[in-house]
């Protein structure tokens, strides 16, 4: 048996856990730099606030409708996510953390369990211990678990957030209800081909021949089909703890046209990526750098470009990654453009202790020691040690006009009780 557990409106629910006065009030959470809405309470959804709506366009809308707006508070969400995931792992040893607010669970050897009861127990434990409401879909396979979860959420008044697909009848009924475009893993390209075969629901998809699916959608498509048929084919991915790529991207508070400013930002983003690499003991082989003007300002000259650099050797050094990233940004920068967003993505990750050495080109071994000292000092004293390209005065300078306190990660921010 598999389960997909999903936190309801996760960021909004984290805010409510510490400010219960907003429990029945519409609330919404903005992305980094207060760019657009990324989490909405059910009440805010009902009022018609769209997902990913740009903040500046909907400021009046929120005021008029009494929607309480929050800046994103990732230290809080990260800690609350960890709490939820750790509680889930007390119910089964097999947990795949799929994203900050989703996890797959696998129940092997739980033969005599009543999963409806067990699911409600999990839900109650998480809700009571953290204040975060969750929905659970349970089924014999991962893909069906995802379908069950959608039903649990869609019909919350009847399911109370827990839905189990147990029998074949339940499976068929659920698949007939599920539109093909909402099926997990069916991409845009596949959708066209499926529509041409008159596939409208997940059930229609399972009625296709294995040969056709394999030919048109490759082995991944066939695995998905088997999974939807109730034959467990997709396994828990236990390798997700280490990410495949690491990105640091931000919208700027203001627009930048001067290359020196942009170089400073890119160097900072590169340093942040390198730090994340070191914290998971990975090194990267590729660096992607991108620049983008403000697409909402239609009257201004638009420019977006990116560069990919393949490194001569895998590295986790802030110095190396930053100097290559700066080379890259120099090659894509265009004068006279007002840039609004930039980012650095590192990919081609390999475990640092398994990286291949190049006979002629390799990292100065001093970097390793320098990085170790840099990390330990930064860990202790906050981000004080920087590389020379980074501005000494600034940190992110993120726009966070509606930020709530870090209730669980800063002792000065804990709740006050009378």
């Amino acid at each position, binding site marked *: 048996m598999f389960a997909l557990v999903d936190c309801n409106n996760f960021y909004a629910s984290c805010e409510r856990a510490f400010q*219960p006065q907003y*429990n029945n009030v519409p609330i919404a959470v903005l992305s980094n730099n207060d760019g657009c809405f990324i989490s909405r309470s059910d009440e805010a959804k009902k009022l018609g606030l769209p997902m990913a709506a740009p903040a500046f366009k909907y400021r009046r809308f929120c005021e008029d409708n009494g929607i309480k707006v929050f800046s994103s508070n990732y230290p809080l969400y990260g800690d609350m996510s960890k709490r939820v995931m750790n509680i889930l792992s007390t119910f089964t040893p097999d947990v795949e953390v799929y994203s900050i607010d989703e996890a797959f669970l696998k129940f092997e050897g739980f033969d005599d369990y009543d999963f409806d009861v067990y699911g409600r127990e999990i839900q109650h434990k998480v809700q009571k*211990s*953290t204040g975060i409401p969750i929905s659970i879909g349970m089924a014999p396979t991962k893909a069906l678990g995802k379908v069950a979860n959608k039903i649990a959420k869609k019909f919350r008044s009847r399911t109370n957030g827990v839905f189990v697909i147990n029998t074949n009848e339940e499976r068929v009924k659920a698949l007939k209800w599920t539109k093909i475009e909402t099926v997990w893993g069916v991409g845009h390209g596949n959708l066209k081909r499926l529509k041409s075969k008159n596939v409208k629901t997940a059930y229609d998809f399972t009625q296709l021949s294995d040969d056709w699916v394999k030919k048109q959608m490759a082995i991944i498509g066939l695995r998905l089909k088997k999974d939807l048929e109730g034959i467990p084919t997709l396994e828990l991915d236990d390798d997700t703890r280490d990410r495949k790529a690491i990105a640091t991207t931000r919208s700027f508070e203001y627009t930048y046209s001067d290359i020196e400013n942009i170089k400073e930002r890119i160097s900072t983003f590169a340093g942040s990526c390198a730090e994340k690499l070191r914290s998971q003991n990975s090194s990267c082989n590729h660096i992607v750098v991108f620049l983008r003007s403000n697409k909402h300002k239609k009257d201004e000259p638009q420019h977006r470009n990116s560069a990919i650099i393949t490194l001569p050797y895998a590295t986790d050094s802030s110095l190396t990654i930053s100097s290559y990233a700066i080379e890259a940004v120099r090659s894509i920068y265009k004068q006279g453009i007002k840039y609004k967003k930039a980012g650095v993505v590192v990919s081609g990750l390999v475990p640092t202790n398994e990286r291949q050495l190049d006979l002629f080109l390799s990292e100065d071994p001093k970097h390793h020691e320098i990085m170790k000292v840099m990390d330990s000092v930064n860990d202790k004293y906050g981000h004080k040690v920087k590389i020379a390209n980074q501005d000494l005065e600034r940190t992110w300078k993120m726009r966070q006009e509606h930020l709530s306190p870090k209730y669980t990660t800063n002792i000065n921010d*804990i709740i*006050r*009780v*009378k």
Partner: protein
Amino acid sequence: MSSRKVGETNVLTFFTPDKGKNINIPISNNTVSAGFPSPAEDFKEKRISLDTSLIHNKEATFFARVSGRSMIGAGLDDGDLLVIDRSLEAENGKIAVCFFDGEFTVKRLQIEKDSITLMPENKKYKPIKVPKGSDLLIWGIVTYVIKAV
């Protein structure tokens, strides 16, 4: 470590080391070059940690700061730090952090058939009787009070 022949030419013979299996041999942190090893080495124990002593359920534990003097009778002074376990059930007589009337409050619970009374422990404050069905959220149960002396 032994070696294994991997190839041969007229003039040269190549060998590659046979690494064999990795065998992990536990080593002691104490070097025993001369003199006696520490007699305490075999009796190492972890140093006392307040985290493990005061936090029984890590994922459900949160902290709060007391503001005001309504509970001084129970030893909760202004500025004290509270350890709160959200996973515990609300029971009669327990000290709880509640959310009532738009704010967090810490009081002793007096649970009756159709009401809950939030009992202060300071004569200057009045009990707050909350009828069943009212908007009272029992947020968590206080398990420890930490105070500066």
